[in-house]
């Protein structure tokens, strides 16, 4: 079920809110929790009912393993963890990487015979972290209902943010949690509408231009340099508005249930370095990779070579997490390389006492690096990616299969202005505490800060109406495939 579909907007979400409110008012919160678990499974099953069994099975097995780990100590606990990791990664390997593994390292059924269950990467990694934290003694016990709702809660289930159990489970025990009130619903709805508008009124506008350029590159014929840059910039804007929109919507929905998720995006294209970019882009994935891969591999504690190696391995795995294709691995590798260069640059600067680059220059260099990496992220094959990269340096020929029109230039300029100069939705909603994390005040003018004022009601109402009118053409979110 898509957040930008009529069934979700006008049936599922209102009913879920209403029933949760009624149960928490006239019954125990546990009843509301139980209902939300069923609703979340229904939400997941809307796409493919048979995979509800997979999700439910994965949750039950992991919870059971967690109980066994809590009841044991030392080596036995580690053995249970090892089994949990093997089972989780085995599931992921079968559904997501089987075709990839067979194609590259052996033989087996063709990839198309295995349908990738939605969100498998998200719920698998969420549960591995849970087991790993039991192993390191960070968890003492959790109720089954708390655990199931933490994993399956529908706003974050499909495409994140990757919510940590420490962030969500304690909230279930707060007195206001899962007791929807108008005071919580209104700002949550506003945040959701801002996200929905980003998806339906902005991100989807850039998609055709990005698709055109990549489709042309996929045929092996290049495009003129300007078109190539235009196409990849369109994709950069599409994926940013698409994914950050999903995160905004997820946070907004959670707010209506009196819960908070972590921030997932914070103006990533304003980053002045690649290190900074990863602190702003898909922040919950970055934190996950840092805490459960980079730091266990030694992090920065064992000297420069090991740190750089850990960084590269982390980013390669991060790339593979996105999809079973070498282009994703290469994308991760490129980011790893840029991060290494960035770290070496910082050390050299520190050593020589050099001043940092002017911020606009740093932003420009970072954005170009990120654009180059997006080529591999979006391309279906290396030949497609090389063709487009060749076009970006002028090797694509002079023919113009789809001339850039005036209004598309206006659209691009507006999009770039929004990402480079505009406030994020988190900053707009800052005073409503939209996330677990506190949002820094970047000087967003008060007129751009959401408040319980009529002008915001009219703005959000008008945006929602504009989205409703486009509901007959809902498009899936890019991150659904991961």
């Amino acid at each position: 079920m898509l957040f930008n579909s009529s069934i979700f907007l006008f049936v599922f979400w209102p009913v879920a809110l209403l029933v949760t409110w009624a149960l928490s008012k006239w019954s125990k919160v546990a009843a509301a929790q139980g209902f939300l678990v069923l609703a979340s499974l229904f939400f997941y099953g809307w796409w493919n009912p048979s995979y509800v069994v997979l999700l439910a099975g994965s949750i039950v097995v992991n919870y059971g393993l967690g109980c066994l780990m809590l009841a044991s100590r030392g080596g036995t606990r580690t053995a249970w963890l090892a089994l949990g990791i093997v089972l989780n990664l085995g599931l992921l390997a079968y559904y997501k990487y089987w075709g990839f593994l067979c194609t590259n390292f052996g033989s087996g059924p063709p990839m198309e015979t295995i349908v990738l269950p939605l969100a498998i990467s998200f719920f698998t990694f969420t549960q591995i972290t849970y087991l790993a934290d039991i192993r390191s003694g960070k968890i003492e016990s959790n109720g089954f209902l708390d655990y199931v709702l933490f994993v399956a809660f529908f706003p974050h289930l499909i495409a994140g943010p990757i919510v940590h159990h420490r962030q969500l489970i304690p909230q279930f025990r707060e007195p206001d949690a899962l007791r929807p009130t108008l005071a919580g619903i209104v700002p949550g709805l506003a945040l959701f509408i801002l996200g929905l508008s980003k998806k339906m009124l902005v991100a989807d506008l850039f998609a055709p231009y990005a698709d055109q350029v990549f489709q042309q590159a996929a045929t092996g014929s290049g495009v003129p340099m300007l078109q190539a840059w235009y196409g990849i910039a369109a994709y950069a804007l599409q994926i940013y508005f698409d994914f950050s929109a999903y995160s905004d919507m997820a946070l907004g929905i959670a707010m209506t249930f009196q819960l908070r998720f972590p921030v997932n995006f914070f103006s990533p294209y304003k980053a002045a370095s690649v290190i900074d970019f990863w602190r702003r882009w898909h922040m919950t994935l970055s934190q996950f990779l840092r805490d459960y891969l980079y730091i266990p591999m030694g992090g920065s504690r064992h000297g420069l070579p090991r740190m750089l190696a850990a960084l590269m391995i982390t980013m390669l795995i991060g790339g593979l997490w996105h999809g079973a294709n070498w282009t994703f691995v290469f994308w991760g590798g490129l980011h790893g390389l840029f991060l290494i260069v960035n770290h070496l640059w910082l050390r050299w600067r520190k050593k020589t006492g050099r001043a940092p680059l002017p911020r606009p220059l740093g932003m420009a260099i970072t954005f170009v690096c990120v654009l180059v990496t997006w080529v591999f992220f979006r391309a279906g094959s290396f030949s497609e990616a090389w063709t487009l990269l060749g076009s970006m340096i002028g090797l694509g020929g002079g023919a113009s299969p789809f001339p850039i029109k005036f209004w598309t230039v206006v659209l691009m300029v507006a999009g770039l202005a929004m990402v480079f100069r505009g406030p994020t939705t988190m900053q707009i909603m800052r005073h409503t505490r939209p996330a677990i994390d506190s949002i820094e005040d970047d000087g967003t003018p008060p007129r751009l800060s959401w408040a319980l004022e009529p002008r915001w009601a009219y703005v959000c109402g008008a945006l929602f109406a504009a989205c409703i009118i486009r509901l007959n053409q809902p498009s899936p979110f890019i991150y659904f495939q991961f």
Partner: protein
Amino acid sequence: MNSSTPGKHLLQMAAAVAAVIALMILATLLIDPYRVFGITNWNQKNFMPNSRYLQMEALKTKSAEAYVIGTSRVNYYTVKDFQELTGLTCYNLTTPNGTPHENLLELQWLLARQKPKMVLMGLDYDIQFLNTPLTESYLQKWMHPETTGTPLWRFRLEYLRFDVESTWLAIKRNFFERKVTYRFDVETGHYSLPKRDDDIRDNWAAYEAAQFQGQPPEKRRAHREHDDDVRQIVALLKKHGVEARFVFTPMHRLTLATFDRPDYEAWKARMREICGTVADFSEDPAIMNENRLFYEPVHFRAEAGRMVLEKLFAKELKAP
């Protein structure tokens, strides 16, 4: 700085949603690029209205002695030629991308109201490839609700959604394009392509070089799911005592080359078994190799349509 309560804020938001949607609905009713509301009929060229709907609406007040049914190809069996060669008044029920199922539904609706003498149906092998629901431009091709049993409110509701892109396209093409690339005539049921006719007349060599580029090399096979619809059409016409004529429509050699030959022959055999006599013009050498008789490899032109009708009704022509 809060100046409202959450409840009041929610109501203000709902009022804004209602106001914007009401404005959009009003605009849609007035702009109506598909011409299904009939308040304004400014869309007269270059943007396809819902021609299926307009044809059925027209037939509520007018009737004909003969009907031509089939895909976009039967558009080129012109009403004028048909009337001239048979002496019967005629209406063309061409349905671009239409399937036999759509033809069946339209005939059921029509025969419940009128008693025509003759129906000519063009049978296209390649329309049998279409087994997916219409997605893009479906508003241009959605069938009249009375033929499908769709509730009128449901049909109208779909057209009340304000589609910025299509609306702008319709406005641009009607008011800012001088040449006429497309026109629909509700009186005859035909559409015409004047700019193409001009291009063919003015610079045939350039037109031919641009249009006859060859077809995809893959051999396509038909779905069998439409056979039963054709069978029902035959039975329906027989039940109503309507003279039925079936033709395999002319194909360009480039289109023929994309067909899976054994499957194509099997389809023809099945159609003959279902329809009885089917006049076969699909591989008429006088037509299939002559680029000038086609707009492009998919659609033959009215000259080819006239040749078909002349051959089809030769007996009547020769009759004293």
